[in-house]
């Protein structure tokens, strides 16, 4: 698996007398097999635009996105999206939500429930198969969303601030759960977050983006998620001097961007 984003720009046309806006400018990025790429940046830096491009919801003004030799020209089952919220279907119970992608692909009920059950186990949702999703807590709803994205065996998992709506404790548990699943499934991940700590802890590669025009200003290779996967406790990883030093460095970049905007 490899996703190549080559010199991509997105320019929103002029409207209401305002000049055209460059949401993204000359983005170059490659995501290879098993990589966990985290995008971080001040609001308006184009993180979500970039995710929408990869998902195929948006086409670039210039440049190209190529996934395994094929140009991305629309959404497809090889790229699954996990949204921040509002994306589950409340008229379906947990198992049918998880199996939704398979239903769209015309898989028979028994087969899709079997697959769905595997991912329900993986996400620790066993016993809730028949619960209505609107009665679950926010953290469990998000796990349903992740399970649903995984059932169709996508090449890339696109996560748009998936933990943004969760409380701090649930969020840390969810981070560890996502890393565990990433370790087991070896998916490539593109992950958007507002939290510097989350970004450093989870990614293998961090891209820091700046607004006006949206662009990638810094790229860091990160060791911390591998440390966690090889057995180091999460809190110990997050408390290590290397982690804290990098956190301060990235925070400085982002605060400088925020001030430049104001």
């Amino acid at each position: 698996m490899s996703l190549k984003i080559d010199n991509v720009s997105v320019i929103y046309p002029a409207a209401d007398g305002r000049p055209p806006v460059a949401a993204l400018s000359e983005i170059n990025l490659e995501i290879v097999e098993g990589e966990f790429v985290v995008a971080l940046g001040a609001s308006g830096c184009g993180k979500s635009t970039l995710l929408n491009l990869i998902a195929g919801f948006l086409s670039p003004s210039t440049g190209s996105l190529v996934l395994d030799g094929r140009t991305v020209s629309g959404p497809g089952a090889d790229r699954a999206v996990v949204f921040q919220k509002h994306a589950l279907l409340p008229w379906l119970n947990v198992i049918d939500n998880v199996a939704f992608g398979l239903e769209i692909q015309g898989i028979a009920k028994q087969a899709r429930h079997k697959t769905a059950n595997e991912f329900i186990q993986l996400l620790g949702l066993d016993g809730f198969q028949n619960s209505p999703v609107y009665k679950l807590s926010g953290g469990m709803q998000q796990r349903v969303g992740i399970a649903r994205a995984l059932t169709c065996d996508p090449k890339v998992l696109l996560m748009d601030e998936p933990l943004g709506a969760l409380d701090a404790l649930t969020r840390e548990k969810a981070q560890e759960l996502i890393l565990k699943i990433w370790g087991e499934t070896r998916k490539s991940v593109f992950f958007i977050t507002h939290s510097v700590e989350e970004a450093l802890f989870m990614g293998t590669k961090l891209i820091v983006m700046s607004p006006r025009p949206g662009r990638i200003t810094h790229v860091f290779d990160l060791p911390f998620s591998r440390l966690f996967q090889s057995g180091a406790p999460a809190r110990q990883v997050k408390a290590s001097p290397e982690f804290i030093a990098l956190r301060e460095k990235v925070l400085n970049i982002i605060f400088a961007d925020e001030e430049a905007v104001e």
Partner: protein
Amino acid sequence: MTDPVSSKGPGLLARLARARPTKPGEIYGVPGQGNTFWLSIASVLVLLFIWWLVTALGLVKPLFVPSPQAVVKKFIQIWNEGFTNTPFLEHVLISTFRVFGAFLLACAIGLPLGLAMGMSPLMRGIFDPPIEFYRPIPPLAYLPLMIIWFGIGETSKVLLIFLSVFAPIVLGARSGVKSAAIEQIHAAYSFGATRWQVMRHVILPSAMPEILTAMRVGIGFGWTTLVAAEMVAATKGLGYMVLSASQFLQTPVVIMGIFVIAIIAFGFDLLMRFLERRLVPWKGRM
């Protein structure tokens, strides 16, 4: 001796103007929360009592407001003997048939049309002007046209009711299309769904609450139009019964007819509310 005012706390007006702390289990500040069942029962009983009292004291002539007993007596008499040589239940059935026939027809045409208008600018562009044009016109205004075009038979009656039910159902289905969150739609597309699958699996189910509400509103309009539809050349039906009774100043029959229409309409509304709870228990919860 303590000051009686200060021991009572703030004055009555101040207490009414400000929200009070809630009981455990309620949420502070939710507008209009609280169970109204017993209050509603009491309200109905009080109204019945006032009605009875006014007539029993002879404050109003029976021609204007007959007593409850007279209405019940009339009901039993018509139940047993019929009205204008037609059994009472036949009046009920024929009116119910007209309203529900028109309602089902309006659902069968209006729901797909409304959904199509919500989905496609082409359909919206074509059908929005005629529907918005006729929607605010009172059915009585176009009743003569219906009769000129479709005669005095069943067609013009059902069609008149149909038109009054049709507009709210189309509008409900049309705005229901917008209920689906864009994330839900994107999720379906990202699994490779076709437009048709998105419609069937996401947009239609999420439009259900609005569609059911539109159906409730629509059937209400249907009963409202019933009397107008049965004004001309009808010999059966509840609307006809009320109108012809009024011409002979049989006020008890008029009031009894009004009650029968209200009870049938209310019964159907209860059924729709029950369906709503069964079909869309998730309404407003996600």
